């Protein structure tokens, strides 16, 4: 039953990917280049428009606020020790203290804010971008790119892993090539990716796909090879054919290992995503950071990093939770 659910999620990802890739394709087809040949952003860069972000929070209030929040958390913990987990309290305390120190260092002007903008400035920037709709554009651009590439990595990686694990001759020929390509960090492909696929989504999707592909393939191979002979024989004995062995024995038996591959692959894809977006695209969190760099807009740079960090954590949590659910039988 759970495999049906997973299949549903994968299909949804595909549909989402297909829908979101269409505007990207049309955009690439229209080739919106300016006279200098560079891609033109299809929206206003907020800083050029000179729009003012909302008033930043008072740093003192901000620090006191966080300190109070942490204290309240500890109070809650002592009142309801069963509801509030200790690990969460400690984690939030440590993050809260770090943020306070960060703000304090800048408030006392121990570091110049050009080198490290204070949290209040970052928050104000993020809020301003959000109101303008600027932030959402980039988040969405990154996520859809990631999903397409990740989906492609799944539908190419898992079948290839099955082939390599099951056919000795095939694996003897494919393995060396896989191992040669595997050791090249995916971003090194960027120049060729652009040469082959042009400007826009395709080269970055290629890079991200490459990043996610290898952990998925390798873990699929390992998982499938670890399938116990006795399970295969049981399936044949019960009247199953070769396909039944693949789909009803090898797949479920290898699934936890494959899923670990998916999680690792997703992590690497996320890293490749940001790297690939520094070039060759006109939207995405990586692009937002790079664009802000040219303007020395440090709060936006840091804001972009915060967003990347947040989404990374969200996706990783989802993966961990799903992994636990899937491996219930273990």
């Amino acid at each position: 039953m759970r495999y049906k659910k997973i299949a549903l999620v994968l299909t949804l990802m595909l549909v989402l990917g297909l829908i979101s890739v269409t505007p990207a394709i049309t955009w690439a087809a229209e080739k919106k280049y300016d006279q200098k040949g560079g891609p033109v952003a299809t929206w206003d860069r907020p800083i050029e428009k000179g729009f003012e972000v909302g008033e930043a929070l008072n740093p003192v209030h901000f620090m006191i606020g966080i300190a109070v929040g942490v204290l309240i958390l500890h109070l809650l913990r002592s009142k309801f020790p069963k509801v509030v987990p200790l690990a969460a309290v400690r984690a939030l305390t440590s993050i809260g203290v770090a943020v306070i120190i960060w703000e304090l260092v800048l408030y006392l002007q121990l570091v110049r804010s050009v080198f490290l903008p204070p949290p209040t400035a970052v928050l104000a920037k993020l809020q301003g971008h959000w109101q303008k709709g600027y932030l959402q554009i980039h988040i969405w651009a990154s996520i859809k790119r990631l999903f397409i590439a990740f989906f492609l990595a799944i539908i190419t990686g898992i079948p290839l892993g099955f082939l390599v694990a099951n056919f000795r001759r095939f694996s003897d020929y494919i393995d060396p090539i896989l191992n040669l390509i595997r050791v090249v960090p995916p971003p090194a492909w960027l120049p060729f990716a652009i040469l082959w696929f042009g400007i826009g989504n395709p080269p970055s999707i290629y890079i991200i796909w490459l990043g996610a592909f290898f952990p998925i393939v390798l873990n699929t191979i390992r998982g499938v090879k670890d399938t116990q002979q006795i399970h295969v024989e049981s399936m044949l004995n019960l009247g199953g054919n070769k396909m039944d062995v693949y789909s009803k024995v090898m797949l479920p038996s290898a699934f936890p290992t494959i899923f670990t591959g998916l999680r690792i692959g997703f992590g690497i894809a996320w890293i490749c995503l940001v790297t690939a977006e520094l070039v060759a695209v006109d939207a995405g969190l990586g692009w937002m950071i790079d664009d802000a760099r040219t303007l020395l807009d440090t709060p936006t740079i840091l804001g972009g990093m915060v967003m990347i960090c947040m989404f990374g954590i969200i996706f990783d949590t989802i993966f961990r939770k799903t992994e636990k659910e899937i491996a219930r039988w273990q």
Partner: protein
Amino acid sequence: MGKINERTLTSIAKNAQNGNHVIAIENVSKCFFVYTSHGEEVITEKRRWFSRRKPCELVALKDVSLNIDHGEFVALLGPSGCGKSTLLRIIAGFEFPSNGTAKFKGEEIKGPDPKRAMIFQSERAVFPWLTVEGNIGLGPRLQDMSSEERKERVAKTIELIQLKGFEKTYPKTLSGGMLQRVAVGRAIVNHPEVLLMDEPFGALDAQTRHSLQDHVVRIWQSIDQTIVFVTHDIEEAAYLANRVVVFTQRPGQIKEVVKIDLPHPRKRTNPEFIEYRNYLADLIKH
């Protein structure tokens, strides 16, 4: 007790008259070839004619002939490594004889078949990613049975192996004895014609083993099944089978076939039983 035994005996007699054995093994031999290169052993079934290295020949079975009729409970008894499992795997269709023929109902065995259900030595053969119900229902599912019939059969089987209440449980939380019962249920749910069991209770404690042995006898009696049971435990063979095939040390050859004319259920304290057991023990020793 009498009724069922009479019935099985008459059906044995009938089949014997027709010369129509369920399983017919004729002069079966099985050898493996062991090549050693760089300290690593490679075992193959075929001789590598172009290999520089000379293989060490490992004869697991030598000239074994055996006929098994419908309704029989045959035990294959012999010391460890004498080729009992190999013979059973040949009957199951996982391996093929190097020489001789193995036939099932007059036709050569070409591969695994749900009509010859195997219960493996290890309880790990149960699929850990399926619940008890899922494991037992898998066979019928593969046979394209209608879902109502399947549910009914699965429920009946679960009752027969006395695992009611554990339908939705995953194997990891079950004990070894329960797992082996699931394996038995998974095999019998398809109504196989022959049940092949490879030391299925070897790894269990004595008490569980005894209760599962009684279980197997009950199943054998209730659905009039042919069972081939591999064991190295003399008492187990004497307790269960009506024919015990005693093997020699490797290369496995049949030393003697002992008929055990005791009605089921048997008592381990019965003097006749003890006589049979001692006789088998003597055979194994010499």
